[in-house]
């Protein structure tokens, strides 16, 4: 009973906060609601025994990505945006597309059959701690994708500097 109660809280909070993110007129308010939603999401990951993912959700998403968003919102002067319409004129069409997607996913979930369980049972993960098990799999089986991820981050650093640099006219 108690786990379902917790899940109900997280489901209601995450849904309401994501609705607030997409409907606010002021982007700063959106960023703030998104921060709250990321914290709720991190606590839901704790609820799923994924404490390392909860930590990187708070550190990377809330700490790095949202601060970047906030910097850009503050850097751009969006005064005139506050007077324009919140949604496009054809917003019911967007609503219909989103609801149709939701309905099709719901109907396909009802026929979902889970596959065979892997060897990382909850008892094993709790005994070895989640972060250690994750590291063991990541640095042996998924070492090559991990190296590629570092190259992606390097390219994004270079790309961000090149794109955001002010061009000086000579």
């Amino acid at each position, binding site marked *: 009973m108690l786990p379902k109660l917790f899940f109900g809280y997280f489901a209601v909070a995450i849904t309401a906060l994501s609705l607030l993110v*997409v409907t606010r007129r002021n982007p700063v308010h959106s960023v703030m609601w998104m921060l709250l939603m990321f914290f709720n999401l991190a606590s839901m990951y704790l609820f799923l025994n994924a404490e390392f993912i909860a930590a990187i959700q708070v550190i990377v998403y809330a700490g790095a*990505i949202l601060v970047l*968003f906030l910097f850009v919102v503050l850097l751009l002067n969006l005064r005139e945006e506050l007077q324009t319409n919140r949604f496009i004129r054809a917003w019911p069409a967007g609503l219909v597309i989103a609801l149709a997607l939701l309905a099709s996913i719901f109907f396909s979930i009802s026929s979902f059959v889970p596959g065979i369980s892997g060897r990382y049972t909850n008892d094993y993960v709790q005994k070895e701690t989640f972060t250690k098990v994750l590291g063991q799999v990541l640095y042996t089986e998924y070492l090559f994708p991990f190296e590629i991820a570092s190259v992606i*981050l390097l390219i*994004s650093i270079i790309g961000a500097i090149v794109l955001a640099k*002010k061009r000086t006219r000579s």
Partner: protein
Amino acid sequence: MVPLNWYLMLSAVVFSIGVFGFLTRRNIIIMFMSLELMLNAVNISLVSFSHYLQDMRGVILVFFIVTVAAAEAAIGLAIIIALFRNKTTANVDEMNEMKG
């Protein structure tokens, strides 16, 4: 024990909210945030799959998604700054230099 299907439904709801925001908003920053919302919806389902199927691959995929989301946020926000320097607006309907 909460059924796995509930997590998948929550993930679907958040993903649809992200799609709705991306289709109906014209402020480029909020469209970008809807994109992040969709990535997070996928993360919910991957973490719950990993927990219920007792496998580590879902969590590793989440790790890579977070990496790519960080890279994408850095590049995307740099593009937004470059656009804003040229047009002084965050409305994507007014960015129509590349048509015809």
